[in-house]
């Protein structure tokens, strides 16, 4: 179970403190798939950063009773001067996973061939995305965080990603942030809406969408 208890996040801006999240509560049980909607700048990505632990809340607590991934296919932690395999090795060491066990999967899934032994800065955007997704799947988690589903690459690669995440790992929990209701409908059972720093949770995606629509006006 992941539990957000009364989370507040205040950023310091030039115009003074700016409260992005104001007393947010959320519970995500094992295997539960939750969508989070909100307009641009509502704090969706901030929420993901707090759940992932990249940033800490100004007040409140994030409890993680299950293992939580980093944001899916996040490539911002890549070091350009390191090879794809070096970056994999770092992630494996960090999570205590045996590197040699996962290399075959990453080689097969990323389809990068000999480029895995080249510095990441020589990769195209699509190649980075493929490596990033492969790394996300190389370490197993109970809950995956997704900040908008943007998968680069061709439709065949999209299909591979879909199978890997939504079919092979359909027993896992999911927290999916999106402003597209169809994405959330396709993958989530329930949804919450971020509006004015508050999180409003709904049992059905349709109710959440109705609230989201109303909040736009």
């Amino acid at each position, binding site marked *: 179970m992941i539990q957000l208890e009364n989370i507040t996040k205040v950023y310091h801006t030039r115009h003074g403190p700016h409260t992005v999240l104001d007393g947010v509560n959320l519970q995500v049980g094992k295997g539960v798939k939750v969508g989070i909607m909100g307009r641009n700048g509502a704090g969706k990505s901030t929420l993901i950063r707090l759940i992932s632990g*990249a940033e800490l809340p100004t007040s409140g607590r994030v409890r993680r009773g299950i293992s939580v991934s980093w944001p899916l296919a996040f490539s911002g932690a890549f070091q350009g001067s390191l090879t794809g395999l*070096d970056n994999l090795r770092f992630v494996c060491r960090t999570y205590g996973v045996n590197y040699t066990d996962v290399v075959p999967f990453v080689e097969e899934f990323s389809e990068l061939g000999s480029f895995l032994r080249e510095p990441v800065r020589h990769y195209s955007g699509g190649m980075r995305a493929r490596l990033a997704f492969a790394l996300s799947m190389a370490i197993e988690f109970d809950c995956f965080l997704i900040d908008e589903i943007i998968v680069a690459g061709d439709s065949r690669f999209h299909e591979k990603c879909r199978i890997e995440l939504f079919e092979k790992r359909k027993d896992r929990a999911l927290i999916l942030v999106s402003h597209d209701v169809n994405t959330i409908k396709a993958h989530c059972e329930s949804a919450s809406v971020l509006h004015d720093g508050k999180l409003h949770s709904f049992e059905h995606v349709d109710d959440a969408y109705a609230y989201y629509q109303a909040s736009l006006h």
Partner: protein
Amino acid sequence: MYSDTSFTKALQIQLRVIGALLMREIITRYGRDNLGFLWLFVEPMLFTLFVTALWTATGQAHGSNLPIVAFAVTGYSSVLLWRNCANRCSMAIPPNIGLLYHRNVRVLDLFITRILLEVAGASISFVVLASLFTSLGWMEPPADMVGVLYGWLLLAWFGASLALVVGALTAYSEVVERLWHPISYILFPLSGAVFMVDWLPSNFQRIVLLLPMVNGVEMLRGGYFGSAVRTHFDVGYLFVACLVMTLLGLALVRDAGRRVEVE
């Protein structure tokens, strides 16, 4: 964050993460080409070598009967020890900010990694140069090995605590980085690397010994030269200064970690 995790488990994770960061940092900084990670100590070695050559040529320790090579090696190595730690921790967060998405990687780990590398580099450089010059007959072996080690370890601790303070403060404001450069520049001639405290007028001795590293360098030289030098230092003062700076540094790093904003 790991309030629900036992201490041994948390320690295990931290050691694992620091190990991963060390490997990553070594390959990132030095690559696999030419000398590779050997640059870790070849670079500080070259620094010390050039300074030793310069001081020998200009007769820096003129007026004293101390052998200049040993004087330069002990002095400049100690500067590299504390200064490189602080320099590498200054602005250490921005290039590594993406790593914080891997939750077990914390800001403190980034600093510890860089401190460990700098201490290792400066220490290996010191040992290699001292051994080399001793075997060439340019330097005498240390009079009191334990004394040298004691001074060196305290200087390393001072460097680590200074690095935590400077590194954390640069996370609050980049101005700190700009200020740190001139400060470290002026601290070099004051740090005890280029003089023995005994050479100074006694009222100035008291003032300069307020700088913690001066005490460390005196200990180091006292161990190296033995009875050939008269040293002035206060181990208790150095110890307390390191302890206070470490606690202050840890508190600042903790707070900086709370404020860090990932893109």
